[in-house]
Structures are given as structure tokens and as C-alpha cells.
């Protein structure tokens, strides 16, 4: 399975479990920021390119994308058992803790100060997510068509408020066609 992969670090199952446990617990408002930080920047288990690949694949699949990142990263590094280790890390402990905690505090869900804290955290989380996207775009900064497509996606969802599926399924074919054309021209 590891044919064609550039990074060949042997990652232990325990490390995978812990990595996605962290992604899960730190992942306020979506674990994507942390998934990339831990697997690409800190661990160097997965290349920038491979991470973008995995995320593209997960965007087109139903379900929670970050769980998908865990499954695919685990599968990439250690096959089926790796996928199970990563997904378990992401789910088991955070689910148990979060569920018990949640059932206990359901009575306090209306506290204003709690809501204010959450809003502050969300504001920061939004900024982190934007920065993660910009970082992922950096390797492609010399490809004009990539910048244009990314800008259209941002504009379509962030500003024109089109539904995700509309943007995904209208922009993707165009972008693929442009890539095919560029590829044909290069050969």
C-alpha cells in the first residue's frame, strides 16, 4: 500500500490513536486545523500534497469529514488496522467524556457567560480555519487557475451563500476540465 508514497515514516498504532485523540479533543469547531497541524506539520507523517488529497476525497463523501481524515490517514499509514486505530482515537475517549459531560451540563445550556465564552472561542476557531486553508493553498500559489477556483469556492459559499453541494458539484467538473486541458497542453 505504501508504493508511490513520498513519506515513509513508520507510524505506530498508538501514535495514530493519540494523534487523532488530540485532533478530536482540540478540535473546537472542526478538527481540520489540528489534523493538518499534527499529521503534516508536526509529525511529518503525511505530505502537504497527500493531506490535500485525503481532504478532497473526504469532501466528496458523506459523513463527518474529520472522521474521514482519520480513517484515510490511518489507512494510508498502516492499512485497515491503522484506520481503526485512528478512528478509535478520534471517537472512543472523546465520545465517552463528551457524552457524560453533556448529560451533566444540559441544565446549564442557557447560561449567558457560557455562550459568550463559546462565541469567543468560535471567533478564534474561524480565524484558524481560514489560515489553515490559506496554508494549504500556498503550494499552489503559482498556478493561476488553482487560485481562481479556490477564490470562486470562497466567494460562492462565504459570500454568495450558495449551498455547499451546488458549489462542489458545479466547480469541481470545471476545475477538473481545466486541469485536463492544462495537462494535455503540457504533453
Amino acid at each position, binding site marked *: 500500500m505504501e508504493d508511490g508514497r513520498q513519506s515513509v515514516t513508520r507510524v505506530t498504532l498508538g501514535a495514530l490513536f493519540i494523534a487523532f485523540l488530540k485532533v478530536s479533543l482540540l478540535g473546537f469547531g472542526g478538527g481540520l486545523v489540528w489534523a493538518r497541524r499534527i499529521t503534516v506539520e508536526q509529525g511529518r507523517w503525511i505530505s502537504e500534497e497527500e493531506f490535500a488529497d485525503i481532504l478532497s476525497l473526504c469532501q466528496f463523501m458523506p459523513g*463527518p469529514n474529520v472522521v474521514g481524515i482519520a480513517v484515510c490517514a490511518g489507512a*494510508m499509514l498502516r492499512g*485497515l488496522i491503522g484506520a481503526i486505530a485512528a478512528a478509535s482515537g478520534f471517537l472512543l475517549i472523546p465520545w465517552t467524556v463528551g457524552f457524560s459531560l453533556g448529560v451533566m451540563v444540559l441544565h446549564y445550556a442557557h447560561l449567558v457567560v457560557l455562550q459568550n465564552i463559546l462565541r469567543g472561542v468560535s471567533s478564534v476557531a474561524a480565524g484558524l480555519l481560514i489560515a489553515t486553508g490559506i496554508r494549504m493553498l500556498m503550494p499552489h500559489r503559482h498556478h493561476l487557475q488553482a487560485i481562481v477556483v479556490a477564490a470562486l*469556492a470562497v466567494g460562492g459559499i462565504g459570500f454568495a451563500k450558495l449551498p455547499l453541494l451546488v458549489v462542489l458539484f458545479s466547480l469541481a467538473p470545471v476545475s477538473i476540465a481545466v486541469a485536463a486541458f492544462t495537462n494535455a497542453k503540457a504533453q
Partner: protein
Amino acid sequence: MNGHSIIIALTARLALLSSISFGAFPTVLPDVRTFVVTTHGWMTNQDFADFFALAQAIPGPNMILMMSFVGWKVWGIPGAIASALATFGPPCVMYFTAYRLWDRLRAASWQRILRAGLVPVTVGLVIASGTVMARAADVGWQAVAVTLAASVLMLLTRLNPLLMLVAGGVLGGLGLL
């Protein structure tokens, strides 16, 4: 409906919805609400909204947690576990199968083209979801400034993002945002 058929109905519904939740689980939330509040009357709208807010507040697998609260309300702990499994099980199998397929065909030249085409879309969607989150959370210019500051600090420094999240929570808790 007796207990068993209730939990089977809920689990089957969640498994179906998680299998078609293209663009992440929030896209099918309206359908879950209709099913558990309007169709079956298992909980009130307020319960449903509280579960949503709470799941957002707890770090971890938010939507899976939210569905667990829904299952818990319907049928206690077994309901919570069944709902969690139904929410992440089917997508996990699909993710794994799709990844294997994708990996096997890695050398194909069409895959390189596909990849080159898809990555900019994906990256654009990441930035877009950041702006959508910001729009929901940032009610005033102070909050917008916090979002921008977090973005810039993340790009230009090696500051731990956790510190930034804590700082955001403190500013919010003090009523400054």
C-alpha cells in the same frame, strides 16, 4: 411504538442519513429534526436546539455527540450508543473503501488530473467554511478583529493555536466580544 421498534426506527433513520450526508452531517440536520420532533414527537424543538448548542460547546466529534444526545433522550444509554454507531459507522466504511480504491489507482494518469482539479476546490471550501463560521460567531467588529488576528498569528507565528482559543474564550467570557 414500543421501546425496541423506536430505537430500531431511529437507528435506521440515522444510518440512512449519515450515508447521504454529503457535505458533512449538518446538511441533514433539518431532516433529523423533522423525524424526531415533528413526526414522532420524541422531544421538543427546544431539546433539539439545546443538544445542538451543547454538542458545539464540547470539543470532540460534535455531530456524533449531538446524535447521541438525541438517542439518549429517546432511549437512554443504549439509544445513545446505537445513535452514535449509526452516525459514524456507515461513513467510516465508505471512507475506507473509497480510500483503498483511490490508492489502488494512484498511478493512473487520470487521477493526477482529477487531483489537480479537485485540490483547489477543496482548499477554497476550507477557507469558505472559516468565513461562514466567522459570520455566525462574529457579531461586532471586536470579534471580527479577533478572527483576523487568529488568522494572521497562525500564518506568521508558531504560537500554539490552543493558546489563541483560550484567549478567545477569555475575551468572550469577559463580555468583550
